[in-house]
């Protein structure tokens, strides 16, 4: 792998940047791999990377039906935080947070992780009680967090309307200073490049259309372009399409796929240097380094795979944002899109063995899995390498929906992000 550095940039300037090495190979798949990962989003690519790096398993293929990172990874609003309520979730997301903090160095790729802090606003007394409870729980878990009152919020975001005259006055917020945003594409590309350098085959434009199962165990997958590809173990990391893949393997998951929308404005000068989220009025906003306001909506209530959503959802979100930021009322919106998120009944992911031997699923991240990308890949790689759940992944088995040990994160995950 060509090492990226400031010096390299200068050197390549001399040849007009025409001689950069390709970032990854475009290999023809082998007949058989130790591990096949279905889905080349951030989570799948991170899984491949950690399989190679931490477990020495490099005979690995990532099979992606479109292009790398073109699913929810490309469509998300990139908020990264770890202030979840329950120990199980907090530990998992904080594991990811710690990896984020060294990720650009680790991958030798700038993922533009920017710890600009995240505010979760409270608009009712109950919101504030929940915030206090959550921040206390976070601190006990060693996760940074503060409870702010209205004045504290106003100091961080001076141009937000924190007056008492609004319909839903801002009573305060939780504030996680280490939280922030990262550059979504760079995360996928950085993991892809690093995985490729260990010899992982990244197979794009190839859809898995069926599973080859013998005596209750998976032995490979059928693809639309490269025929059958065999594997000792298969990990599915296909977000909104998890139900479709589970169906191929003959079981159901406790998941429903919903459209989730986001929109960005025209680029404007720097105005918002943190991330503001509100469960109560249901909207959130940050500003990208390019200058566009990045705004996220809630999910559409119906199941859908169409990668687009309904206008009332956008209208509702924009109304909430303008209530908080009247100054944005004349900013024009540039683009709007949807991704398909796999929501789980307890708003927590599934990282799990399945009824089919040697077949594992990493899914159910729903509206908020980008923040977990390195951590998810890290624990799923360990799970695939050992054939048993990584300690941090253990509580997230799909079988928790049989024994009732759900991890209710609806409070911390309330607004889609």
């Amino acid at each position, binding site marked *: 792998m060509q090492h990226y550095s400031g010096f390299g940039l200068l050197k390549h300037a001399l040849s007009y940047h025409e001689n950069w090495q390709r970032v990854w190979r475009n290999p023809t798949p082998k007949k058989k791999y130790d591990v096949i990962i279905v889905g080349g989003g951030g989570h799948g690519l991170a899984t491949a990377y950690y399989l190679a790096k931490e477990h020495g398993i490099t005979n690995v293929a990532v099979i992606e039906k479109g292009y790398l990172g073109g699913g929810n990874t490309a469509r998300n609003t990139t908020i990264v935080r770890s202030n979840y309520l329950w120990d199980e979730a907090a530990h998992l997301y904080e594991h990811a947070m710690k990896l984020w903090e060294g990720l650009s160095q680790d991958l030798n790729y700038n993922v533009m992780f920017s710890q600009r802090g995240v505010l979760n606003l409270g608009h009712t007394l109950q919101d504030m009680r929940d915030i206090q409870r959550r921040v206390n729980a976070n601190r006990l878990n060693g996760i940074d967090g503060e409870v702010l009152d209205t004045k504290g919020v106003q100091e961080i975001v001076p141009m937000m309307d924190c007056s008492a005259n609004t319909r839903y006055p801002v009573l305060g917020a939780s504030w996680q200073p280490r939280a922030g945003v990262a550059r979504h594409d760079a995360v996928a590309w950085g993991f892809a490049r690093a995985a490729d350098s260990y010899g992982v085959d990244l197979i794009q434009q190839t859809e898995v259309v069926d599973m080859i199962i013998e005596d209750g165990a998976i032995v490979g997958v059928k693809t639309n372009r490269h025929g059958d590809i065999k594997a000792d173990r298969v990990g599915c990391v296909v977000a909104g*399409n*998890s*139900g*479709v893949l589970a*169906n191929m393997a003959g079981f*159901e*998951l*406790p*998941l*429903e*796929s919903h459209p989730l929308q986001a929109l960005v404005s025209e680029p404007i000068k720097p105005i918002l240097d943190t991330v503001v989220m509100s469960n109560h009025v249901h909207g959130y906003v940050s500003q990208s380094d390019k200058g566009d306001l990045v705004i996220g909506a809630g999910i559409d*209530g*119906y*199941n*859908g*795979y*169409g990668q687009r959503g*309904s*206008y*009332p959802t956008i209208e509702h979100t924009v109304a909430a944002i303008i209530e908080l930021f009247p100054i944005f009322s004349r900013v024009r919106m540039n683009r709007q899109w949807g991704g398909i998120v*796999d929501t789980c*009944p307890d708003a927590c992911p599934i990282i799990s063995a399945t009824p089919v031997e040697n077949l594992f699923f990493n899914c159910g991240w729903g509206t908020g899995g980008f923040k977990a990308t390195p951590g998810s890949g890290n624990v799923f790689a360990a799970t695939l390498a050992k054939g048993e759940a990584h300690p941090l992944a253990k509580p997230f088995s799909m079988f928790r*929906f*049989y*024994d*009732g040990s759900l991890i209710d994160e609806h409070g911390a995950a309330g607004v889609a992000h």
Partner: protein
Amino acid sequence: MFYIYCPHCGEHREEEEFHAKGQAHIARPADPDSCSDKEWGEYLYFRKNPRGLHHEMWVHAAGCRKFFNVTRDTVSYEIKEVYKIGERPSVVAAGN
């Protein structure tokens, strides 16, 4: 944007008057106490999540507040039919 026919009101109304309520035709186990954890868990949480034809419940939340069923394509979003609770769908996926 959906334009949904409510079979109770006998009218097409805009999507915002309705709420989607998930998979239709899930029968509550007759004797919950005799269910295994697996059976009860599946009843509560495990769902068909098809890419294609889906039978689902909707409620006319800001209208008559009654429930009904819809057969809808989850990719094109086209509503194929609307039918009342207790009725069977006439549009079904191949192999169903």
